[in-house]
């Protein structure tokens, strides 16, 4: 393969020229999200999962549940641990090894969108105050990187969390833990949806492909909750003007219901 950065340089002028004339290489409008598909089937041993594609980008998200001790400052809340793996099979530029700063940034941004919107009822995940709570491991796996992995992760996380069923755990009076046969649905209170924009010249584009990402001057990720509030923002590389950020937020809010509908139809969310 030609080095990605060189390829970007070669197609860069073309993408910029297209952007200046209001077009994108794949024919999409600037505020158009690529096709979202949720692959039917079982792919993991997780308590909740989703294999999501966003155009040619593919991710697999799995939710595993366990029990453990709560953090001292939140004795009555469950624990959410978000982890991103940018697998070397997803891109020739991804190397095996522990998560790098990009992976950790993505994991934390998705995590903040969930917390910022109170998407999971963490209080319902306490078993015994200060002693035992459910721990939710959200593992996000990049399989194929054609740009905007982070939105794919966020979508996959929502579907996976909404599908999560956890065995009921009880603690007896003498402190013994019992794992029951019956399960309960992970209590989901909100559906924060994440929208990533890039800037090429003056153009603001939603859901960039890899080529667009590599050419971009700046990137920002915005999450909107179900009542239209902004619940997390991460300016990533580059810089934006104030009016551009306001425009991005307003586009994100206007796209919310469209993406939510796709999630409900394809992901079977209630």
């Amino acid at each position, binding site marked *: *393969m*030609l*080095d990605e950065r*060189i*390829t970007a*340089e*070669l*197609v860069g*002028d*073309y993408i910029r*020229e*297209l952007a200046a*004339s209001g*077009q994108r*290489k794949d*024919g999409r409008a600037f505020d158009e999200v690529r096709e979202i598909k949720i692959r039917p089937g079982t792919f993991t041993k997780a308590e909740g999962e989703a294999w999501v594609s966003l155009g040619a980008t593919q991710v697999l998200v799995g939710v595993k549940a366990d029990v453990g001790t709560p953090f001292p400052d939140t004795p009555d809340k469950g624990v959410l641990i978000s982890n991103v793996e940018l697998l070397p099979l997803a891109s020739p530029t991804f190397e095996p090894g522990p998560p790098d700063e990009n992976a950790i940034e993505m994991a934390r941004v998705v995590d903040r969108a969930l917390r910022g919107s109170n998407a999971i009822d963490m209080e319902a995940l306490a078993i015994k105050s200060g002693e035992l709570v459910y721990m939710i491991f959200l593992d996000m796996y990049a399989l194929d990187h054609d740009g905007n992995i982070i939105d794919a992760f966020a979508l996959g996380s929502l579907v996976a969390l909404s599908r999560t069923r956890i065995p009921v755990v009880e603690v007896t009076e003498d402190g013994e833990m019992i794992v029951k046969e019956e399960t309960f649905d992970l209590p989901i209170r909100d559906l924060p949806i994440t929208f990533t924009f890039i800037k090429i010249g003056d153009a603001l584009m939603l859901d960039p492909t890899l080529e667009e990402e590599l050419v971009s001057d700046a990137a920002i990720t915005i999450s909107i909750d179900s009542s239209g509030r902004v619940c997390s923002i991460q300016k990533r590389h580059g810089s934006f003007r104030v009016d551009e950020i306001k425009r991005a937020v307003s586009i994100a809010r206007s796209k919310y219901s469209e993406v939510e509908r796709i999630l409900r139809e394809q992901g079977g969310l209630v």
Partner: protein
Amino acid sequence: MERLRSSEKRGKALKLGRNEPKILVANRDLVLPGQPLAVGPIRPGDYVYVDKRGVLRSTKVGLADIREGEIRVVPLAGSYIPREGDLVVGTVSKVAGNTILVNINSAYPGVIIPPRGLRGRARAKYNLSPGDLVLAKIKAFDGVSAPLLSIEGEGLGKLVGGRVYMINPTRVPRVIGKRQSMLMLLKSKLGPEIVVGQNGVIWYNPKSLKHALLMEQVLAKIERESHVSGLSDRVLRLIESSGILDPRGSEAGEV
């Protein structure tokens, strides 16, 4: 055994004699790595090996190509491995002293070494910097050290302006076509400035953004449908249905 029998039926046009090869596939059959292609006195061509028992087998996914005295496989998958005489399009990745390193979309980076004693214009051709796009010829490649590239010759050297499209290198023969037929078609309909590197890097200089978008569509179609016959007709239909044909295009293509 089953495959042997059915192939004998298909190959009934072949007269089987004692000293004649037994061909086990039909021409243009899709073949897989390890698949037996023939037994007996026939030359193994590209991507064919002879196993311990003398069976000729494919090394790749591809199409069987049976010729007089030779059987070879036209691959449908694989990255670019340089061959002497190939034209390639690459980008200059590094200039170190007298050596110019060129990324040619291969596991083997190419090297340009300017000949000694050049002056004036002839020397200026070698003033290349990282990021420059060049059209070069593979002058020498021993399979081990970096392939030696040459930009001496008509049209070789730095490519200015234009755009690049990357295609799977195995599809390059289809972009060029039999006796350059596909390339001529593209030149006549979409503009004469197109260069197809054997390494899968295609450079073209479109007349407009619309031409560029159509060229991308056309090349994507060739890449995807390369192994299905009747490709030229389908490409022509795609170009004609786009409705952006330039009446002057055909004249330009004949230059």
